[in-house]
């Protein structure tokens, strides 16, 4: 696209290259903070009255509007900053903060948002939002990883029908006597059924052994934001087993499972702990 005068063309080129430079700065900040600001505008209102002018005190009220997104969460902020300039110093105080977030399914966020609004803590809001979203994405990836790598084994397992646990002792004897090699599942997959009850962005993962469908482990993974804005994962294990199994459990393994899981998390970390948990389900019948 050429213009008739070369001067105009030069400034247009400058404009474009300058714009390109600014846009790459924007991309850098967006990656660094994890926050993409799409729109921003500000209006100022001079609140200085004649009395203050005499004492050389200036008061300005700024009204800011900001919108953008942090991955899949979009936000819209409106806040006011009161700037007071006197002889010694300039003070800037956020006097009002309103935050609208979407989607609203993340229940942990609504409490956090009202806390941030109350405290008018804009910086903490953005920082915690970034980490919260990162943890949610990590949780989603981890759960999906385990879901993909599990499923009923392709060959060898005979008991895909639900086990009726009426005669539990006889059942366990039968399982013990069965040849273990028959139940060796293909190496790539865990012989367990992983189910995400709440869908892709689920906060819990249910693991059911295909050999012993009466047993189910539900791992609940919540991402919490504490009073000071620190984002922490909180994992819990909820085991489920048939009544008769509980009666046989003299070592109280099932009762102490949630605590043991916490200890396991501390030692192995989240991924390894979940993996060992899933693996332990299929060997449970043979010990």
């Amino acid at each position, binding site marked *: 696209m050429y213009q008739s005068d070369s001067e105009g063309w030069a400034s247009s080129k400058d404009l474009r290259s300058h714009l390109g430079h600014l846009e790459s700065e924007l991309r850098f900040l967006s990656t660094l903070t994890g926050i993409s600001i799409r729109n921003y505008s500000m209006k100022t209102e001079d609140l200085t009255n004649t009395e203050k002018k005499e004492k050389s005190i200036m008061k300005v009220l700024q009204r800011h509007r900001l919108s953008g997104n942090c991955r899949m969460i979009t936000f819209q902020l409106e806040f006011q900053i009161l700037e007071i300039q006197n002889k010694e110093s300039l003070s800037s*105080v956020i006097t009002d903060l309103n935050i609208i977030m979407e989607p609203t399914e993340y229940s942990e966020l609504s409490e956090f948002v009202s806390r941030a609004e109350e405290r*008018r803590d804009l910086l903490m809001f953005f920082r915690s939002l970034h980490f919260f979203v990162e943890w949610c994405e990590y949780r989603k990836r981890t759960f999906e990883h385990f879901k993909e790598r599990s499923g009923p084994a392709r060959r060898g397992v005979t008991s895909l029908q639900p086990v009726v646990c009426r005669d539990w002792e006889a059942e366990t004897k039968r399982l013990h006597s069965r040849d273990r090699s028959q139940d060796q599942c293909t190496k790539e997959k865990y012989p367990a059924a992983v189910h995400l009850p709440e869908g892709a962005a689920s906060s819990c993962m249910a693991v059911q052994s295909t050999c012993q469908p009466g047993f189910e482990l539900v791992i609940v993974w919540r991402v919490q934001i504490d009073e000071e804005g620190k984002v922490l994962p909180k994992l819990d294990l909820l085991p489920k087993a048939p009544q008769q199994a509980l009666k046989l459990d003299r070592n109280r393994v099932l009762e102490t499972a949630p605590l043991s899981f916490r200890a396991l998390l501390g030692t192995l970390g989240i991924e390894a702990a979940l993996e060992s948990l899933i693996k332990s389900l299929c060997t449970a019948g043979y010990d």
Partner: protein
Amino acid sequence: MEWANDGKSRGGVLAHLERLEIQVNRSRKNLEDLQRAQAIESALGTKIHKLRCLRDELRAEAKQRQARVKASTVNVEPDQTPEISEQEIAKRRKENVKAILQAYRFTGLSGKLTSRGVCVCISTAFEGNLLDSYFIDLVIQKPLRIHHHSIPVFIPLEEISAKYLQTNIQHFLFCLCEYLNAYAGRKYQADRLQSDFAAFLVGPLRRNSLCNLLSFTYKVEPRGQSFPFCARLLYKDLTTALPTDVTVTYQGKRKYCTFCSHD
């Protein structure tokens, strides 16, 4: 009921033949109806097919026309007005981007790209009060290094950069953010104590540069005969603006009281 042999049986046969005739007529009629319906169906089928062909033809023609119109507009000589408006668009976009870049200070981290690398600006705040900003100029090279900065000397910058600068810039900057925000918060609180509660203080407020050790004497009533208390606040955790140890002594009798805000 028995049929009689002659007349009655003949009546029986005739009646039977009648019945058969009625049946044949009925089935013939049904067949005719069926054939008629089928004829209608096939006629409609052909009509549908014809209409579909017509529709496809019209669609193709519409597309062709659209393409022709598009092609013709491209070949038109650009006159002044669209060109200027494109520049206007770019200008407006530039203003928008500039404003957004300014707005990033509200996230805590903002900055700009430099010829060497990047200059990051860390903003601090405490309870809605916007406080000082600090900058750190990074040179993008292997290894990454700090060109210069405005971070106070008592913030453990070397320690933090040794841990994170080379491996994870984001973590390095977030960590620095934490320390600087906590320091700014402590300093703000100490300043407020000194200015707003001057009437309650007996003597000066003693503090170190990190503002994580404060010591002062205060009275419960600004005037009057109440006894002064000596307070000592220690902030062991440099990433928070709340003290971890508080000691209050009452002269003569030591009333020792500590609280820990962290385990």
